[in-house]
């Protein structure tokens, strides 16, 4: 195995085109853990740490752009991720433990595409767009089309995620990521990412995404429609939860049985919506 650390995106893309068995490594936490368990071996590892243009958070009036190599800790502390984008900041702050948040990057997390991770569902709720570059040029992939199966994304051979672009979201929106796990820092048994706008006592906008509930993060527009126009009473929440649970296909493992995860969806949805409705964003 060889390790290369290109200084620019262009150089990295050339390596990927030139080498047939090359793989990028960002923060490396998850990938190196799999290499330690001799689950993964590659000919060429391309370290992206030296490509300055890939990290940092910038904003314009209608968008926040997070470089793919931006670490979880920086995202969790970003004053820019407010309103609807609170869902992304709150997710970043609940990933694993402080030390892992100093290592892991948002690009690495979504490329690994583990549905139990926190960013996939949060970015789905935030309506993100994934910017990916390859030798042929740059592509914008809507988040809804990015995740395809367990650990499988729409990325093509030789493509690198360069940034995650987040629309500001509607005025007055608030976002929150509710993560339920066995112990602090464990992967979620089930997570609910929600973005909500209240017009007085009535919900006028809702984006809900489930994590750890299937091969990819789950969004059901019918469930959101069931909330919009309602005062987020028990009936509306129960109907939305039913539609979401129908679309869910959670695994059965040491973190919880399929049945228990399905039981949690309505309960955590209610917790997420009530937290947002009442204004404070306490974590679970």
């Amino acid at each position, binding site marked *: 195995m060889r390790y290369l650390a290109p200084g620019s995106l262009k150089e990295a893309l050339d390596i990927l085109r030139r080498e047939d068995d090359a793989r990028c490594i960002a923060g490396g936490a998850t990938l190196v853990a799999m290499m330690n368990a001799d689950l993964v071996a590659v000919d060429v590892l391309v370290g992206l740490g030296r490509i300055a243009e890939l990290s940092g958070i910038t904003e314009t009036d209608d968008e926040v752009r997070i470089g793919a190599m931006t670490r979880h800790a920086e995202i969790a502390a970003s004053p820019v991720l407010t309103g609807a984008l609170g869902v992304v900041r709150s997710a970043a702050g609940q990933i694993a433990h*402080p030390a892992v948040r100093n290592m892991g990057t948002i690009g690495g997390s979504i490329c690994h595409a583990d549905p139990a991770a926190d960013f996939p569902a949060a970015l789905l709720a935030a309506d993100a767009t994934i910017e990916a570059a390859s030798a042929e040029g740059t592509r914008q992939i809507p988040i809804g089309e990015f995740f395809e199966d367990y650990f499988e994304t729409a990325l093509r051979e030789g493509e690198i995620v360069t940034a995650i672009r987040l629309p500001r979201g509607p005025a007055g929106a608030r976002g929150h990521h509710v993560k339920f796990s066995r112990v602090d820092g464990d992967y979620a048994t089930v997570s609910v990412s929600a973005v909500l706008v209240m017009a007085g006592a009535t919900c006028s906008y809702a984006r809900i995404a489930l994590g750890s509930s299937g091969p990819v993060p789950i969004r059901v527009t019918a469930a959101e429609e069931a909330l919009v126009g309602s005062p987020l009473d028990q009936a509306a929440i129960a109907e939305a939860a039913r539609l979401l649970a129908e679309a869910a296909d959670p695994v059965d493992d040491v973190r919880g049985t399929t049945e228990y995860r399905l039981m949690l969806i309505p309960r955590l949805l209610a917790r997420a919506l009530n937290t947002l409705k009442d204004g404070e964003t306490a974590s679970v």
Partner: protein
Amino acid sequence: MSEMDVIEKQPVTLRVNGNVHELEIAPARTLLDVLRSELRLTGAKRSCNQGVCGACSVLRDGKPVRACISLAFAAEDSEITTIEGLADGNRLSRVQQAFVDAGAVQCGFCMPAMVIAATALLNENPNPGVEEIRHGLGGNICRCSGYVKVVDAILSLTEGSKS
């Protein structure tokens, strides 16, 4: 090893505890491997080898990271500090001394990592309360102490404890 997969070694320069080390290693080697084997710094410990227990914590540019799931090559541009780099000769750092005085040490295997985490936490926030301390220690697993005296040790270094 058989001919076909002779492990190619590449040069790497690591800055650890203020010393510069020029090494030739196989790229798949982790920072923890290199610290413990080549550099004989055995204060960082291998326990889970998956980055979930914290026993391998070191500071990278002042922030705690997991050496067992960091490639040695990925540390090339950073300043690495291990537990051996915190004391000044045999004068303990104030965090190390607070751990002694609070009676926080039992088997000691997780203690280097606890000191690393506590040092970084106090550098960032000199006056953490109990909850901030417990969050700062998140992911540093100890099986002997139940964490009570570890939190006390850190608390003893904050203003709160002086009153």
